[in-house]
């Protein structure tokens, strides 16, 4: 019995130290990964520099026709730095993007709506003929501001609308709700974004309205503070080359 107990104690000690050894290895592994990520970031910075300054000919002429509606998902904590967001929008405007859907979970961007619209929206021109002021119209972008309340909660509201429409009257015909019924009840005026750029630590949708991203390409751009102009060009260029089968 004593020998058995002794052996059990030894095994327990070995397994405990084994676990500690594995945990140590795990930390070492993640440390190596962090170093690799830093190297990758440096590589991206160099690549962005080359693209921005026109050394890479592939990205000089972008076919922006395919990017009819660009979506931006920004982490709410980073969205509070309005100047960073404005800089990003200026870059997009310079590239030639006309319509942008701005999303952040908590609605921080929604609260700063006036700032963006004033900066990029069409100013109230005393002269109706905007052709005489080409510079202003070039900077102009149309925005849509979206937050978490436009996501699942909006579907719940739409469900209530549908319920009131079809179920209040006991004798009325109750159709099976397809996508068409829900789209109508949701009353979304804007189309689905073609390309979604995600600014945050992780490639995560953070609650962007689900039914608006069925076939949207989603690219992770890293944290907002490390945004790079050249990488936006790269993401848009890659998007224009994508061929979607839509399941067929």
């Amino acid at each position, binding site marked *: 019995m004593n020998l058995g107990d002794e052996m059990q104690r030894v095994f327990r000690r070995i397994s405990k130290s084994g*676990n500690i050894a*594995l*945990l140590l*290895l*795990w930390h070492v*592994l*993640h440390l190596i*990964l962090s170093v690799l990520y830093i190297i990758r970031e440096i590589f991206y910075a160099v690549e962005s520099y080359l693209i921005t300054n026109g050394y890479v000919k592939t990205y000089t002429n972008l076919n922006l026709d395919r990017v009819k509606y660009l979506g931006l998902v920004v982490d709410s904590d980073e969205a509070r730095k309005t100047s960073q967001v404005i800089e990003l929008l200026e870059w997009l405007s310079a590239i030639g993007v006309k319509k942008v859907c701005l999303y952040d*979970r908590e609605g921080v961007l929604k609260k700063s709506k006036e700032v963006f619209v004033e900066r990029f929206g069409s100013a109230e021109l005393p002269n109706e003929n905007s052709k005489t002021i080409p510079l202003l119209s070039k900077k102009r972008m149309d925005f849509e501001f979206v937050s*978490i309340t436009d*996501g*699942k*909660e909006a*579907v*719940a509201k*739409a*469900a*209530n609308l*549908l*319920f*009131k429409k*079809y*179920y*209040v009257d*006991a004798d009325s015909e*109750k159709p*099976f*709700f*397809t*996508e068409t*019924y*829900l789209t109508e009840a949701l009353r979304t005026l804007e189309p689905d974004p073609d390309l979604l750029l995600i600014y945050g*630590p*992780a*490639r*995560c*949708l*953070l*609650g962007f309205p*689900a*039914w608006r*991203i*069925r*076939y*949207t*390409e*989603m*690219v*992770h751009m890293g944290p907002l503070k490390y945004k790079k102009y050249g990488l936006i060009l790269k993401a848009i260029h890659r998007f224009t080359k*994508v061929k*979607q089968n*839509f*399941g*067929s």
Partner: protein
Amino acid sequence: MAEDPIIATDNSLKKLELERSDDTVSRFLGGLNHTIRKLVFRVISSGPIPQHIAFILDGNRRFAKKWKMTEGAGHKAGFLALMSVLKYCYEIGVKYVTVYAFSLDNFNRRPDEVQYVMDLMQEKIEGFLKELSLVNKYGVRVMFIGDLKRLYEPVRVAAEKAMAATAGNTKTYLLVCVAYTSSHEIPRAVYESCEEKNGVMNENGSVNGDVNTGNGSEVVVKMVDIEKHMYMAVAPDPDILVRSSGETRLSNFLLWQTTNCLLYSPKELWPEMGFWPLVSCILEFQKNYKYLEKKKKQA
């Protein structure tokens, strides 16, 4: 160690492994491979392991084109990759695995391809049913998610048999999405919630007279009701969604459930998916774990 039942169900893979293991050197290498895998999994297990991983099986046809195989052979290679990935997931301790096997949009493909995939699914499900005792021993519950009425009759029958046969298992779950799209799932959940609320109200008489008088502020259907009626309500939301072949879209898959989910797009085509891409995916999840947990709590 007993052979994993999921691998055991595919006889062709068994034969392949037998042929390979005849040679002493390859048996040694196989054993070494197994040990390395075990070691890597044990190291990774020191950190958080995802509870639920979802896979979009993209790239079978491109794989077939790349290796000059028929499309059917590409799908078969995809199936073998699926079996390996499932084995690794369960080895590392993932409880729920969801796969996007067939979308409602895929019915738009050429009829002969649709027929081939349906036949392949039927063949594999029936093969699986033959190894039930082993499957039940490992506690794998198989569920088919989607508009099953749209499936070809023999496939639907086989799927329902598989679901019934494994209904008692609770250790690990395999959710196979067939004839599924989120744009079908979400409106259907809304419809089912409305039907349920209507049924409840009819039972209780006109208790909520407010609705009948057109009071706009009455909230009958809540978000929890809709979530309850989703096809995917049987499992928690996925922690990682993996789409192979480097494509960055979701193609109408789990749109409602991926609010706080890490999206991962390895460059490998689906038949090339295996051990190392899965390890990279879990490491990526571990790197972002704290951030994702913070976001989940905020919801």
